[in-house]
């Protein structure tokens, strides 16, 4: 029961690998289903066992049955915990990705690499998460823009940036700027912060 090929251990190992390498793996639907099936199987065993000893009072249940019941119950709980951990881990990775691009959901979802790794539930989760974040952001938008990523506080109104990936013409408060690869611009920080986050511009 404690072999490393155990399903729940496999899930957790995948989480560990994913967090060590910093990449998101494909949603392991197979494993999740197997684990759920295992839980159900165990549960059936449990109910069967329980029904066989239910007529006895609690302190007279024979020892082997008691042990078996406890074992099965612990295993079920353990499986559940692993499943929850797996999903929680993936959700937090997705949330990090979302915040890393400054709340630009299409950036995350339209990327075919990422999209292929998410389950439909996770996509729904992302959408819903983005929606409630935007709602919250709109509430606070007159005070602070919560999706602006700030690692170090800005020292200047303006930022000198160099274009690393073509982003075409960007309309800002002060007019339209045509960003071309290989040129440098002095621009208002507020206007292009999101472009820096998304990796089109790099600050010099």
């Amino acid at each position: 029961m404690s072999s490393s090929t155990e399903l729940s251990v496999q899930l957790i190992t995948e989480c560990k690998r994913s967090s060590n390498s910093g990449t998101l793996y494909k949603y392991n639907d197979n494993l999740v289903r197997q684990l759920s099936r295992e839980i159900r199987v165990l549960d059936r065993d449990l109910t069967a066992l329980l029904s066989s000893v239910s007529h006895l009072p609690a302190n007279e249940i024979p020892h082997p049955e008691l042990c078996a019941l406890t074992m099965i119950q612990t295993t079920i709980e353990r499986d559940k915990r692993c499943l929850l951990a797996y999903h929680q881990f993936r959700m937090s990775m997705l949330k990090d990705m979302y915040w890393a691009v400054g709340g630009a959901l299409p950036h995350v979802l339209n990327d075919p690499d990422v999209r292929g790794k998410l389950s439909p539930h996770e996509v729904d989760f992302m959408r819903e998460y983005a929606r409630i974040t935007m709602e919250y952001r709109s509430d606070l938008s007159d005070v602070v823009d919560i999706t602006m990523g700030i690692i170090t506080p800005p020292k200047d109104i303006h930022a000198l940036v160099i274009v690393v990936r073509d982003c075409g013409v960007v309309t800002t408060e002060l007019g339209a700027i045509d960003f071309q690869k290989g040129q440098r611009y002095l621009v208002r920080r507020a206007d292009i912060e999101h472009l820096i986050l998304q990796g089109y511009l790099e600050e010099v």
Partner: protein
Amino acid sequence: MLLPPPNPSIKRDSYGEAYQSIIAKHRRSPMTSASSVVILVAPDVDALCASRMFAELLKQDDVLHRIIPVSGLADLERMKNELLTYTELHTLILLNMGSILDLPSNDWFGCFEENLTLHVIDSNRPQNLSSLFGSEDPEVDKRILIWDDGDAEKLTEEKKAWESILYDPEPDSESDDSDDDLLISDDEGDDEEEEEDDDDSSSQVGQKRKSNSSQDEPSPKRRRKEERAQARAKRKEKQEAREARELHEKIINKHYSVGTWYGQAASGIVYALATVLERIDNEILWLAIISLTFQFTTARISRATYEGYQQLYSDEVARLNATFPEDAIPGDFEGIRTGQELRFTLLRHWTLYDAMLHSSYVANKLAIWKERGRRKLSGLFAKMGYSKSHTQQNYQWMSKKGRDELTDKLDLYAPEYGLVELSYPSFVRHYGHQRLPMGAADMVEGICALLDVGGRVKILAEVAGTQNGGEWFGGGRTWEVGTRWRDDDKENKPPQQPAEPNSNGNKEDANDDAKVPVPWWIKNFWAAYDALNNVKAVHEALFLSMSIHRAIIREGCSIIDKQQIKSMNGHRVVIITQGPDLDLLAQPATLSKLALWLVDSHRDRVPGTTMGRSKRKCLPFVVACLDRKAGSYLVVGVTAALEDGDVRKNLFGLAFLDAKEICNARSRHGTFDTSVIEINEADLTMFLQALCNRPNA
């Protein structure tokens, strides 16, 4: 229109006012200010420094701007066509380009929007007279400002000539026939250029008008005599007008045909601007010093001019930095210092032997390409009392006593070998305890190396400690430009399949960006631009520079050994078709360096010739290098002066154009320098023949 330098005694519009107008325009239109100021920069050290200084000034004034590097005339045209589509653009600044172009004409910037002002800060001369003194459309003129360093004000003759030709159309030749019927103009003997065309307009009208003096009718015979006299006077006037016109045209032609030379560096002009705005600090001063040293070391200005400017900057340095006596500099001094610099390339960062070997002045006097010459050099060291280990180890590790005595010993022993004037006044910047001080010339070498070669050619840069069989095997590593440009990262894909969207490097290949990589010279440009601030990067670039120098010496020595310098009608021509450094030498900048080295090394050995119309003797040198990939020859022409430290105007720009017309060779000007040209492989010999046998060569 000409923008004169600021002069405190004369109140007139100058740099400061032009700059304020840029800012005012920017502030006046907040809604469209995002892409309203564009700076086009040519790829040389001077323009780089000037652009950095200017960008700094604009940043301090919160003016949003955009810096675009431009590689040559073709690129400039393309850029101009693109810029035509920008409606919000109101200021365009050209650094080290465009002063020879006829800017007000419709080919260039004459057809731009009303609100566009063009500022040209260029050190190339001669300047185009139309841009300076006006074209047919005064409205366009007001918008094109050429920032001048004071030389253009002295072109009074050219100005007069130009204006007279501009404002007086061709005199009619038909007016000669009809003598009697013309009105006599009142200002017969006056200068043509003063007023609009009196006699010309009247000649075009050609009406029959009676002369105003004859109200009453004198006798017909007397009238006829009068009229004949008037007609004769008229004809003489016509004759004079035509002669004057020819004289003016000659003056203007002379202005353009004396060759190309360089005025004050663009950074110098921006420095003057910063002085007017009172925003000088050590950084800006250092950039201006770098530009000046660049102009001197690449033989663009003469030593006398250099010393003049150096004196100015020396005063500025004293104003901004504490002064210490030479041997009592505190260890944590971080600032600029004036001092005498020896003319050995990269002395502080190389070994003494190498530094002397690679400086062209020493090469000339000692004939380094011969084994005998190198032995002479070793002999000089021996006389001065420096052991071989002293001279073959890194200069930094030489004993302090050795370093201090170097100048004195050189003064003592070097004149025997013909090495005089080994030092010149220059500047050094200290960085406290962080690293060794960097000389201005060293800085120039590093930046040039980054700019010209950088990541284009695979070159082995030296690693410190590998000279003379140091500890490491294989004496170098391939030079790499920093990996800011993510399409370089093709090799850095993580091995397993899931590619994280966070690491945007790999995504690039999926987009079309990878298909349009950034051109190599733009990468070099920005690498050099960043290095201006970052001493560490320059230090590393110095190793690259050392490799380049070695390559140049190798090539130069082999050329001289194999006696590949042919003499054609007084011109010295070298054609390089093979060799280990062919790729490296196919760059305009490195080839120019080689040409300068060859010139320096031949200075005393070759008699000068006269070129063109001037009577002064000079040394015309032409170096051609095969560019295998492009299938063409890169040809560089250098007109050097007979004395060291002097410069001549470079006539090769015009010479190339003439030769091209004569022989119809397929060619291309890739850079802003008219004395560098690419000729199709097959046409080279024909071109060289035409070049050297020109009628007025």
